[in-house]
């Protein structure tokens, strides 16, 4: 029985969805999430023996997804990204669609966060990983994970809070 195939196959089945969702949360794009996660899984497969011997293939795979998504976002071009961010933060309440679903707002707000902050928030809150796990995945210190997560969470809460205030004009202002 080819143990390597079996092991990787089991790994794929266990993690493909989570890795793709991680890529989605990091990029905000469903269209590229599967591709980036599959590229990360290709790397895992390529170096499976070494990765498995190191003991935590899932952390390795998530780290690669974090890396690939950062590269992907960079390639989208800073100008385009700024435009998108301006769309979020533009401060033009007339452009706000009152019926935009809340999840879309979270998705946009996430994209405003710097990469590492976003990665920390996503891994801690969406995937419920420990600070130590996140530190391993992103190859940073536990202290850095704490501060980045805390800053990211506050920034996100503020963005969403602001957003809700804008969307509930009247309701909030009235109170």
């Amino acid at each position: 029985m080819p143990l390597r195939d079996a092991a990787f196959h089991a790994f794929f089945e266990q993690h493909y969805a989570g890795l793709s969702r991680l890529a989605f949360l990091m990029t905000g794009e469903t269209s590229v999430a599967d591709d980036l996660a599959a590229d990360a899984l290709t790397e895992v497969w390529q170096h499976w023996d070494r990765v498995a011997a190191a003991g935590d293939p899932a952390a390795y795979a998530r780290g690669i997804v974090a890396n690939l998504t950062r590269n992907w976002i960079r390639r989208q071009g800073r100008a385009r990204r700024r435009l998108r961010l301006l769309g979020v933060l533009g401060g033009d309440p007339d452009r706000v669609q009152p019926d935009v679903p809340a999840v879309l707002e979270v998705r946009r707000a996430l994209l405003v966060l710097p990469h590492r902050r976003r990665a920390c928030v996503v891994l801690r809150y969406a995937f419920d990983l420990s600070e130590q796990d996140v530190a391993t995945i992103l190859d940073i210190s536990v202290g850095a994970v704490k501060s980045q997560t805390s800053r990211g969470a506050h920034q996100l809460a503020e963005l969403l809070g602001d957003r809700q205030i804008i969307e509930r004009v009247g309701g909030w202002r009235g109170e």
Partner: protein
Amino acid sequence: MNEHGRPPESFLRTELRRLAGEHEPDRAAMLNRIAANRASRARVRGQTVRLAAAAVAVTTVLGLGWVVTRGLADDDTPAVAPPASMPNTTGLTGPSPSASTFLPGIPAPSSTLTSVPPSSSAPTSSEVRGHPGDTKVEKGSLWSEGSTDGGTSTVTLKAQADLTTLDLTIRLVLTPGLAEQGSTHDVTTGVITASVERRSDALLYHFTLRQSATLPAGTYMFTARYSHDGASRDVGEDTYEAFGDDADHRRVHVYGNFLGQPR
């Protein structure tokens, strides 16, 4: 902004999980992409594996992609029997006639490429970071890019600040007939020392900034030249890595490969 009374942590947890659930991963598409990645890497390995790559493309369609690709790529394990008892990975059914090409006892067409000693699970002494998925092409004031053009592999470094130290290594994996043909760079001030080292598994091209010299901010190209057997050479495992200090005493460290930007 918590006047609305929801503790940010549980609020974020709920919202992020809900958002994550919005994306429904396409398992089959991911499997296909993995198979295609591996096939395309195999395909650039030169003409000796063209046939095999074509066979992979066929078998990939039939759902046996990663069962048969092991004969082609740089796996550490020898060819072994397909995992017949495992579920078909793409949900498609039916055996592939092409798969028999790679069954045990029948050498894969790429077997000539396995003359390089198999690597152990430990990194080799000449390990240079920068493999796909493990790249950092930009750090602080230093930006980098790898490119290839028949018989040359070039690393472009763009330094936004003066560099007071620089060590750049280009690592070319030994492929059939690979031989160094020297190196060149466009630093005109004579401050770069260049050398080529042959290891058991790779050629290492070193470019080092002389001690107490300064490389002014600017864009520089460092090129490894080589000859090889066959019409084309696989650059998929070639990497580069550069360490340096800029004038502000900040450490810069970049690494990457020659495959272009990862998709």
